[in-house]
């Protein structure tokens, strides 16, 4: 017994020492370390040839030019052009297709069949949340073709702002410094305009503005009245002195008014202050083919109650929203609501069907001129990555309802622009700017697809915007509102979650 036990120990000890002399243990620890270095589940970034491609950011109406660094065909980072930087959200645009709440599958054909059946004898309405696109024109043509088609635009009249001429801005809750205009333009102009923000909430713009008028919620128009007439305004919660001094300032500087909701009185005041025609002008659109027969833009307020049988909402690119409460009343009792979106966040909650759409930078389309560009522009956003199977192109879908083939709409319009022969096209790859007449149509089209922007020539006087009846759209969303309503790239967690730079609403 004793002997064996001792032998056992001897053996163990000898074995241990022997093992230490063999490379085995060292090898083992080294391997352990290596394993801990490429921990399971850590993706290996794909290497490959680096390429640069250009497109336009479709996240907001600013439509900034984008320079994409790609490995093969996969963009790995986006950046603006020199002097035309992107905002935080534009920088992560290439990751938008991977956002968590994305809807990918739906039975488009079934939905199409249902709509087609009802379209025969019911009112079909399209709600366009980003008017002025070629897609918008497709909708208008389709609605014109349908027996009882109605085209609803979130914003009826789209005024443009001539920032260069602006000396002072009084903004009624417009996020001037947070997702309103083209970041670079606003940034450059910021040095020469004074910003007065009238807003109940403590928004970023309010706190970065030169002056913040903390008014009571819903008293924007009262403030306008008070400024216009010099009377009243007690309801806003501001004292008369403040209002008087502001009014005084405005009169002297010939200020510009911006309103979150379009209203006649605001435009009226702008006109009174001489802003209209100088700093606030009519939005100009790029030429469209004469063959296109559009339906008129129907203001939502003038739609009869409970008349809409089928409501199609294009959320694939949304700059402004019509509150659901305003839409609800217009719907017939058994109305069919279909929304084209990539996530449930927006109207998806109320719609019966949600048809998944491609998101930037998968989608193909054009971006209407930015609010701060008085000149007409034409810019394409071209897919940097291929859209997943099963996504629907809203323009082609709705065009299809009226037997309109919208597949080539963009190209047709580009043709029309080229035919008009005005303006010039500046290509981003080489930064050159060529007059349209010096270049062939197909070169023009190719240039636009490789990242170029057509800009109308400055000539011609700036027309005052046509005033239409007010529409209840909520325009000019700041990024917090966008984040709440629409899809956002996963990395927004850096801004909203991992730091308290921004506050999710």
């Amino acid at each position, binding site marked *: 017994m*004793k002997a064996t*036990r*001792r032998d056992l120990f001897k053996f163990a000890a000898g074995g241990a020492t022997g093992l230490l002399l063999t490379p085995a243990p060292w090898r083992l*620890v080294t391997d*352990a*370390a290596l*394993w*801990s270095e490429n921990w399971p589940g850590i993706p290996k970034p794909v290497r490959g040839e680096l390429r640069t491609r250009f497109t336009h950011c479709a996240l907001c109406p600013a439509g900034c030019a984008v320079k994409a660094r790609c490995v093969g065909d996969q963009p790995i980072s986006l950046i603006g052009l020199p002097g035309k930087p992107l905002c935080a959200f534009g920088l992560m645009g290439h990751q938008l297709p991977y956002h968590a709440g994305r809807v990918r599958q739906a039975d488009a054909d079934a939905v199409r069949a249902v709509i087609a059946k009802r379209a025969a004898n019911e009112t079909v309405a399209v709600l366009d949340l980003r008017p002025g696109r070629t897609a918008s024109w497709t909708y208008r043509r389709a609605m014109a073709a349908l027996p009882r088609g109605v085209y609803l635009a979130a914003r009826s009249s789209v005024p443009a702002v001539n920032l260069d001429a602006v000396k002072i801005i009084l903004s009624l809750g417009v996020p001037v410094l947070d997702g309103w205009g083209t970041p670079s333009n606003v940034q450059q102009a910021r040095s020469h305009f004074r910003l007065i923000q009238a807003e109940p909430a403590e928004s970023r713009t309010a706190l970065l503005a030169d002056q913040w008028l903390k008014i009571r919620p819903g008293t924007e128009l009262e403030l306008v009245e008070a400024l216009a007439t010099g009377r009243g305004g007690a309801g806003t919660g501001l004292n008369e002195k403040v209002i008087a001094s502001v009014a005084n300032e405005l009169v002297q500087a010939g200020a510009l008014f911006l309103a979150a909701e379009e209203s006649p009185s605001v435009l009226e005041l702008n006109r009174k202050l001489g802003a209209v025609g100088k700093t606030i002008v009519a939005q100009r659109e790029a030429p469209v083919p004469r063959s296109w027969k559009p339906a008129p833009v129907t203001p939502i307020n003038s739609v009869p109650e409970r008349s809409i049988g089928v409501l199609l909402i294009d959320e694939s690119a949304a700059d402004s929203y019509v509150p659901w409460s305003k839409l609800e009343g217009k719907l017939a009792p058994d109305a069919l609501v279909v929304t084209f979106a990539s996530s449930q966040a927006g109207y998806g909650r109320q719609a019966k069907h949600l048809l998944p759409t491609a998101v930037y930078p998968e989608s193909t389309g054009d971006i209407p001129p930015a609010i701060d560009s008085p000149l007409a522009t034409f810019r394409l956003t071209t897919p940097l990555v291929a859209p997943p199977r099963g996504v629907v192109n809203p323009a082609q879908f709705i065009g299809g309802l009226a037997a309109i083939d919208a597949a080539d709409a963009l190209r047709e319009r580009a043709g029309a622009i080229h035919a008009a022969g005005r303006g010039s096209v500046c290509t981003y790859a080489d930064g050159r700017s060529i007059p349209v007449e010096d270049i062939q149509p197909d070169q023009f089209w190719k240039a636009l697809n490789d990242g170029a922007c057509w800009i109308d020539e400055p000539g011609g006087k700036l027309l005052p915007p046509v005033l239409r009846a007010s529409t209840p759209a909520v325009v000019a969303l700041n990024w917090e509102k966008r984040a709440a309503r629409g899809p956002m790239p996963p990395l927004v967690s850096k801004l909203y979650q991992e730091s308290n730079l921004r506050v999710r609403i």
Partner: protein
Amino acid sequence: MLMFGLYSAGLCLVKGLNQTNMDNRFAFGLWIFLDLTVIALGAGAFFTGFLLYILKVKELGAVINSAVVIGLVCYSGAVAALLVDVGQPLRFWFTFWYPNVHSMLTEVTFCITCYLTVLLIEYVPIVLRNRRLRQVPSFLIFEFELHKLVYVLAGVGTFLSFFHQGSLGGLFGVLRGHPFAFREGLAVWPSTFFLFVLSAAAAGPSFILLTTWLVSKISNRQLVRPEVLPLLGRISGMLMIAYVLAKTVDTLIWINHTSPGAGVPAWQYYSWKPFGTWILFAEIVAFGLIPALVLLTPRLRLRSNWLVSAAALTCIGIALNRFVMTLQTLALPTLSFDPFLSYFPSWQETGTFLGVVGFGVLVYSFSFRYLNLFPQERDLEQPEAAPVREPALAGRY
């Protein structure tokens, strides 16, 4: 409790440290605090050994075994907690492979591992003295021979302990980024280095005193001669008073020179509730000076309840000091625009903590049950029977 501890630790190892409530500001939490405290309390092992084998204070032979076991328990517990605490436990050996000799943590790691081995070796004879094991002659002889060499180990242990106890203090003393903890010092070591050595040496005997008292209460047996505990108390008291004095001087220098030098007036630290100046007072006076004085007053020292409570106060004082050094340091903001943070350990952390404690208790009680931790115990058994008379031949002597 042990199971729960293992489960929590397992969670932290498998799922990662997101299980804890630590964060980027509170990079250290309950565990580091635990380690520092436990190691300070475990200092009894080296200090008793030092006194007994190097300075030949024979009376301490009564508690040396118990001291060694306590030391072993504390250190192994601390190392276990550390292994859970680091993000990549598989890489523990990197510290030995690529040591950055300027880092206090390197020093700590090296010393603690060495000292743990020393403690293990010192523990071997105690184990081998078990009656059953002693039946094996080779064990018997080995124990005997090893015991003759134990003073060498005691010497090494003292050396190692001195350095890692100090380095543990250094850990925070060198944090230039935290004016609250940063101290200038002698040579390469900040003053906290020496303060920690002193405080650990002071706390060690107190903790042994405490455990001995506790064990004898629980087992209601008399384990050591009555004069031993007061002796421990006296040693602890003398060191404690020295520590308190040193600490006071250091604090004054810090308040008037070091901290303003870093651009922060010292009052600012204490403007953050709940860490008012009371914590400074508690640390130095309530849990420092008072027990020291009690332990140094012979009359009080001989009253066991005074003695024990003073020892307890000392231990609490040291724990408080470690708490201040670890958690308060991290809680205080350094930049003007970062907030004062508070931190509360998650149940996984607490579980691991309890697990370590449970492990300690288990090992100690097993050792107490099967090994002879208190050699004097046999001598102190009181015969309950009446002295034997011998009726037949009574009055013969």
